[in-house]
């Protein structure tokens, strides 16, 4: 069977001789792919916890979630955002065909949070 494939090198690198780390892309290596991107909002009363579930049918796949815990300031929340220095914090639980985002609002007033997410093609477990 003939060898085949595609390689693209980074700028100023020779695609025939450079190290794998200096390639932009190679069919020898898988790359994370985004199946779906989206956003939603969650309004949470002061000193309470809110949650929203985003359903999909991709099975156990990874997600990356970002929440504007402070106005115009987003934080990673796909694990948890404890320790970001914000009064509010959020976290995310990944299930087989959905993920649930929780936000605990300690900001001093009701807030509507913007949630941005990327659903990856890659397995999460």
């Amino acid at each position, binding site marked *: 069977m003939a060898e085949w494939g595609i390689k693209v090198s980074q700028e100023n690198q020779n695609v025939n001789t450079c190290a794998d780390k200096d390639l932009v892309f190679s069919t020898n290596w898988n790359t994370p792919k985004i199946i779906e991107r989206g956003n939603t909002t969650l309004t949470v009363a002061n000193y309470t916890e809110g949650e929203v579930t985003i359903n999909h049918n991709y099975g156990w796949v990874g997600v*990356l979630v970002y929440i504007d815990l402070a106005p115009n300031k987003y934080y990673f929340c796909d*694990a948890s955002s404890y320790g970001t220095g914000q009064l509010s914090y959020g976290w*995310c639980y*990944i299930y087989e065909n959905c993920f649930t985002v929780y936000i605990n609002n300690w900001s001093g007033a009701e807030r509507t949070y913007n949630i941005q997410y990327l659903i990856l093609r*890659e*397995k999460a*477990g």
Partner: protein
Amino acid sequence: MSYNIKVSNPLYDVNTCDDKDLSFTGEGNLLKVKLEGDYSITIPGGQDEASITIYHNLGYEPAVLVFGKRGYETSFRQRLPITGRVGFQRHFCDIYADRIVITAIDSCPVTDQQCFNRIANPRIFTGHYYIFIDPLPS
């Protein structure tokens, strides 16, 4: 002479669209997966912590992405590092030039006898890891 390759997202003109509307371009690096796999960590009964080591032998610290369980009894997963507010359950990954070490910690407050009874048994933490060829910025 310089070369490039671009692929646009559906319904976008590859010659005129913004970079954010490309699914691929030779002008932007992509994360490339060197190794991936499922893992399982068992904390023996009565102990607080266990780790597994996965060797990659790249010679530099690579970018890594890991999804795992916060608690052995939970059905959901999260991206590592995972910790609760109190910090008695933690699951994280250390990155070295030749390996990664994934650790699960399940310990108890000194006064919580119910917790000590619980951790007298073995606990299994599972997950899935990706080790990329791409180095962390030096």
